[in-house]
């Protein structure tokens, strides 16, 4: 008695496939994480539209615009509607008999929500059906806890399945009280070593005790680090590029751009470089992707002359204050840093020479959103 034919009280939203979006997530090597990120991007678009049409008010994504750092490990689509936090759980399960909410959305004070929505995704029919919802209090009282997968399960009969009553209540209701949670404190050093060990583990959210994982996951910066680290394997190798082997997400300039090369790249990125490669970079805090470009000249004795540049992807100027830095991988010693101003259409680390085999790290940051790329010259 959950999801029905022809039930007008369960909204059905259009969920058009988006090949461009699927392509954009090609850099995610883990198939489940890629699929989850894809579905959540589609779902977010559909839900934003629905809220706007239904309640004449646009929700905002929360905690960031497209939280890939969350989607790569946990199910849950998050929206902020007025002052209400809403978590939508997407599921493709045919029997749709229960709502499974990962513990992160319930027991972490800064991530728990006021409402949880059960949504059924049908990619073949390109639709998303909202079939039930529950306020936080009901989830707390009625759900059972699945310790193996760390999720709260609520039976369909305990969900409200009539969306005509949805969001009628909050106008009159007190916000749900958050339960005190038992999280332990983690020192930065400890957290960073834990992140190292989690980055390559299958199902990282289940490795540590929840009291530790919860602390880690609540922290936006650590979440970003974990995400970046798990995406960046192994370090990018310029030697490989010379042999036309490109790591996940990296592409030679020709295939990165639809036209042979647009004027704005020709002016700055071409010149005498024998090899130009780029990768799309996602920062939660940026409204659009960024393009990280490497131009490499091979000189005598295999010495490299490298220029590193950062471009906007779709827009004409970079977000102001986005930072591009070069560090030594082993020590983290900062070699050079540049920051975008108000109207920069690109920024760059000035060309530098180094021998082959040098381990270097490019660090890109906007507010608390960070992306790092390790490479071997």
């Amino acid at each position, binding site marked *: *008695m*959950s*999801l*029905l*034919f*022809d*039930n*007008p*009280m*369960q*909204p*059905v*939203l*259009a969920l058009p*496939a988006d*090949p461009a979006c*699927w392509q954009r997530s090609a850099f995610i090597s*883990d*198939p*489940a994480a*890629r*699929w989850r990120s*894809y579905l959540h991007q589609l779902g977010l678009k559909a839900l934003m539209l629905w809220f706007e*049409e*239904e309640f004449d008010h646009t929700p905002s994504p929360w905690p960031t615009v497209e939280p890939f750092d969350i989607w790569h490990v946990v199910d849950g689509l998050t929206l902020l509607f007025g002052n209400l936090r809403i978590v939508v759980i997407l599921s*493709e*399960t*045919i*029997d749709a*008999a*229960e709502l499974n909410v990962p513990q992160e959305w319930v027991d972490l004070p800064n991530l728990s929500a006021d*409402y949880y929505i059960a949504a059924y995704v*049908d*990619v*073949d029919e390109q639709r998303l059906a909202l079939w039930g919802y*529950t*306020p936080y209090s*009901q989830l707390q009282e009625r759900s059972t806890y699945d310790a*193996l997968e760390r999720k709260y399960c609520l039976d369909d*009969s305990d969900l*409200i*399945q*009539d*969306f*005509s*009553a949805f969001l*009628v*209540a909050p106008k*009159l*209701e007190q916000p749900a009280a958050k339960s005190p949670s038992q999280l332990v404190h983690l020192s930065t050093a400890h957290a960073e070593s834990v992140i190292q060990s989690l980055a390559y583990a*299958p*199902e990282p959210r*289940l*490795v540590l005790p929840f009291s530790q994982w919860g602390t880690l996951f609540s922290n936006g910066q650590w979440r970003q680090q974990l995400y970046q680290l798990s995406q960046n394997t192994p370090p990018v190798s310029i030697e490989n590029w010379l042999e036309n082997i490109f790591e996940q997400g990296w592409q030679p300039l020709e295939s990165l751009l639809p036209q042979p090369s647009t004027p704005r790249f020709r002016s700055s990125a071409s010149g005498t470089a024998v090899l130009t490669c780029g990768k799309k970079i996602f920062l939660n805090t940026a409204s659009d992707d960024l393009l990280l470009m490497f131009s490499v000249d091979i000189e005598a004795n295999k010495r490299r002359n490298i220029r590193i540049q950062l471009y906007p992807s779709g827009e004409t100027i970079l977000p102001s204050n986005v930072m591009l830095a070069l560090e030594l991988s082993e020590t983290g010693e900062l070699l050079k840093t540049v920051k975008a101003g108000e109207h920069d259409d690109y920024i760059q680390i000035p060309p530098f020479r180094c021998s082959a085999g040098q381990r270097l790290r490019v660090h890109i940051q906007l507010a608390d959103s960070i992306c790092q790329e390790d490479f071997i010259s």
Partner: protein
Amino acid sequence: MKLKAVSAWIWQQTAVQLYDLTMRSRTETLATFSTFIQFTGDRFDTWVSAPRLARSMQHQLLQQGDNERSEKFWVLHWYRLRRQHPDAEQHLWAYLQEPCYWAAHRISRRFPMVQYSLADGFQTAIANVDRILNGYNPDYGSDLKVYARRAFGNCIRDQLRQQQEINISSDWGLLRRVSQTQLRKALLATGFVQTSSFILLWRCFRHVCTPELGQSARGLFAPSSDQLDAIAQRYNRLRHRDLDIPSVDIKTEQLAVELTQLATIVRAYLTPTVTSLNQPQYDDSGEEQLDTLPTDDTPMAQLLTVEAYAEQQRWMQQIDTVLSNKINSLDVPSQTLLRLYYQQKLTQIDIAHHLSIQQYQVSRKLTRVRRQLLLSIINWSKETLHISAEATVLANVSDVIHEWLQRHYAPEPPEVLE
């Protein structure tokens, strides 16, 4: 294809009318709370009396003396005694035969192209009595008969949707989209006592085998050899952490065999064999305990019911005034929409045709109208009754509005008149 569907539909229509001629609604209070439907083949045959329930009901009726009580009164009475009186649940079970029948009847008519007989629908739905009673809340004047008919209908529709989904999925598509609960049930039903290693295997499969864009999720292909390797690798990494039983590393070849086995098990479990049409619902074997019926607590219980019943009626009358006023103040398109849905009982597709709008807009407009009605009730109850507007209470009130709309636009359930 289209022609076939149409002729199937006509056949169904004719067939349904035949049943209508033979289905007799119960009119006696005694029978209403003590008899069960018997089918012959796919048609209603007769009402079968359960002697013990008949005696229990007789006993209750005698206690009432000359006071003739309505059907609704008895429903509330048994509902309130559900946890105390040994027969209360069975009386309600008997009572719910009719709404269940009409729910199945309506759906077999509304979705005639689906392979689903009236008796199948009835069997599927009647198994949910417990759930329906748990979900029912009489506090806001909801009528059990109306509530149950909708809830039974929902059970059948959900079953239909799932069945259709299962029929058009490949074994692998099915395996990926089955729930863990059902997978476990399927394994247990097949005779596996130890399910955890299978479930871990299944989780690894689901992790690795996601559809490619442009490929159908239902028609998911069998795992490639690379994918099998990845599943095996994942399984071998996770088994130490997730399995509480001794386990060994799995080899890719063995994994392929086990996954295929899993897919077959799930398919077999979810594809139903023809359900038997006899009556398993009522077990009258406790007959000899008849004389131990608790008798002394009933007068008090009945008195309490009288009070609760009066309360319910008052609330219903008030709601009736509030909603009638609100409906009259709605704009014409909203009123038309309500009539098409509640009076003429058109499907959303038909309404969309009728009003030249998209199907999803029908749902949105209906939801909006119902939200307006809900708000009118809330404002009224806030001012006069000081009822708190918690989300769960609102859902109950919204149910009541739905029932009210059904009654308002079709005062008697039309099926009974047919």
